[in-house]
């Protein structure tokens, strides 16, 4: 395998890591306004993702930086072309990041409500834009012979790309409900299970439609054969169906595994449908950016390959350990659990 292909696969892998992991914390965020009854349950939901969301988000940073380093032309064209969409993502990302840290730093109900909504809106809006953006790569955008985006903001939206955005949102809401069913207890747990069941049908329907349409787009607009993209697409659809089945049967662990597999397979479908191009041009197919045309030189890729192949397994190890440490279900009483020695947030008398 040459290094350009390796890096194309690694970038697909980083996006997968981002969506599988951050996907469920997006889902938890989206459910914040609907699922909990009262402030305590809302705090439990925040707690369920508190130790992990930041590590999950770094997969996006890595996907972006890896694209910069391995495929500078892809990074330059994509990020400048998606300018206003990415501005939107950045605003939502920023508000969502601070919502985690700031929400509990105020006492007023309104303060907490503001940050809860910041988190919820971000959790839905961010995957919506990423879904549109990744769908656009394969559907095609106006790109000139110099490799620059020539369209306006509205050119990013087609029926197909919007479906991609909605599919991501529904898939992650489903994924997040499944995660909550694994991590919560009591009433909240029951409601999380019900939410997973309620979300299963729309997530399966829209997700499957998006997968099928992606294969069609790959064939029609990216001159691909039906095989191989159809393979991950079928896996994604089957995994979604199984996830729905397990949600109804109350097998939360298997259901969550299935939504994770569906997410992986969906990213794989998009990237298999895209290869050997990285951005399809709708202006003229010949203007499309390709893996070999956009890639960095062999030396850069070789250096980064060594770094990535050493570090990625280590990262997977310590992130898994993080999940292992916080594997216990969140309970209401945990909020008032004793802390070592005296409680000393603020050194007050006594």
């Amino acid at each position, binding site marked *: 395998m040459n290094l350009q292909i390796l890096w194309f696969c690694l970038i697909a892998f980083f996006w997968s890591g981002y969506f599988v992991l951050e996907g469920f914390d997006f889902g938890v965020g989206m459910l914040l306004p609907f699922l909990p009854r009262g402030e305590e349950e809302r705090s439990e939901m925040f707690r369920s993702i508190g130790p992990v969301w930041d590590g999950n988000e770094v997969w996006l940073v890595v996907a972006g930086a890896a694209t910069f380093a391995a495929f500078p032309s892809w990074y330059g064209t994509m990020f400048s072309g998606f300018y206003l969409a990415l501005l939107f993502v950045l605003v939502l990302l920023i508000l969502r990041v601070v919502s985690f840290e700031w929400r509990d730093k105020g006492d007023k109900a309104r303060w907490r409500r503001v940050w809860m909504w910041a988190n919820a809106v971000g959790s839905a809006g961010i995957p919506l834009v990423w879904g549109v953006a990744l769908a656009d790569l394969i559907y095609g955008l106006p790109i000139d012979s110099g490799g620059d985006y020539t369209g306006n903001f509205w050119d990013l939206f087609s029926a197909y790309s919007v479906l991609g955005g909605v599919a991501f949102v529904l898939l992650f809401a489903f994924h997040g409900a499944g995660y909550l069913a694994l991590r919560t207890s009591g009433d909240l747990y029951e409601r999380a299970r019900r939410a997973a069941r309620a979300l299963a049908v729309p997530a399966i329907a829209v997700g499957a439609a998006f997968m099928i349409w992606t294969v069609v787009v790959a064939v029609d607009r990216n001159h691909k054969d039906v095989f191989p993209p159809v393979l991950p697409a079928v896996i994604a659809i089957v995994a979604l169906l199984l996830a729905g089945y397990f949600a109804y049967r109350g097998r939360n662990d298997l259901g969550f595994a299935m939504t994770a597999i569906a997410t992986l397979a969906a990213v794989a479908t998009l990237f298999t449908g895209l290869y050997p191009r990285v951005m399809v041009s709708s202006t003229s197919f010949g203007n499309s950016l390709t893996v070999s045309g956009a890639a960095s030189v062999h030396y850069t890729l070789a250096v980064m390959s060594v770094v990535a192949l050493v570090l990625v397994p280590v990262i997977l190890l310590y992130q898994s350990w*993080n999940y292992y440490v916080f594997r216990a279900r969140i309970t209401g009483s945990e909020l008032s659990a004793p802390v070592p020695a005296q409680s000393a947030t603020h050194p007050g008398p006594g």
Partner: protein
Amino acid sequence: MSALASTAVDLARIQFATTSIYHFLFVPLTLGLGPLVAIMQTIWHRTGNDAWLRLTRFFGTLFLINFAIGVATGLVQEFEFGMNWSVYSKFVGNVFGAPLAVEGLAAFMLESTFLGLWIFGWNRLSPRLHLATLWIAVAGTWLSGYFILVANSWMQHPVGYKIVNGEAQLTSVWALVSNGFALRAYLHTILAGLIFGSLVMLGVCCWHFLRGHEVDLFRKAAKLALIVALPVTLLQLVVGNRFGEAVTSAQSMKIAASEAQWNSCQPCGFSLFQIGGFTEQDQKPSFSITIPKLLSYMADGSFSGEVQGLNQLQAQEQSKYGPGNYMPNVRVIYWSMRVMAFAGVLMFLIAVLGAWLYWKQTLERTRWFQWTAIGAIALPYIAATAGWVLTEMGRQPWIVQDLLLTSKANSPSVSSTWVGISLGVFITLYAVLGIVDFVLMRRYARPDRPEAPGELPAAVATY
């Protein structure tokens, strides 16, 4: 160049400057307060003295409030290269992208994951392991600083590359990561971080002394802050000076501009203050205070060194790169250099005074110094901002020194309207975030905060 295109470049520059200066208000405090909190927790772990646990919690909360906004604004920086500077990104990606990618893999993953473990792990991990998670997270923040400065230093002093088909290609990763410019810039930045951490801590302690609140507790923290601040502020003066020598050899124009030195000189005096003399039309200051020979020493380590003047450098650059203006904004560069240096000296004096008062055991009673130390919290912020203005504006008109002009590096597909929109959005959002952050920091640092009954300990995350 058309007026429209130059508007787009200018707006993109203003946006990048605004977002990166803002980002760097939070980063150095993370770099400096992190290890200080880790030291406090280590002392608690070693001695079992609960005072140190309380201090860990107290300053840990400030650390986390600040950390969140640093992370959030850091995302903007990574995206902006591609969003606003796509020509630059395509030109440098082969070289510049690599340290950014490694930063994500090696540093961001570490700090984010282990900080999550630290925040939530108080009851879940053994005390030893819990302490280790904080040190690992701190190591992550220090690593990330290194990689981003390797990237930035390549823009100041490109090494280990060749130009092929109009793009820079990496030829030696060793040259890239051992770039002398980067190593000095890194040391300079880490010291700046420690100054941030220790002076913010000292200021907060003095605020508590002023109100007579928990004096015994905060005396311990003040001692730690001074033990760090004293050597670090002194060392920074030395390192800053040595860094200047690296700049002299890599970026003569930047040094000439920072001294408003229009004509080559040998030996050269250091201008402490001057009125006028900042433009090509007005090269002679109407008033100035100058220390003889000092600039020669600062620029190359000897009292008889030569410093090239702006006029001579401009002529050389023109013969090398064609007609054009290769001088940065002299007035801005001259003053940013002085603001940084004077603030650096002031911070050292404050550390000396504080240490002396502590040693005399009068720190808790010396009100004028307590007010001074509270005010001095602003100094590292001012110095760091001025330092980055000097570094980045001093490189102009180049985006990559001698290789690519800023005016030719922006995204052709991004109109000035789009940049105008994003600039407005960032300024509004950052202003709101800044106010909220300031209010929260103040609230959690203040000595007279009414304790809400049954309040949860906040450094144990309470989401």
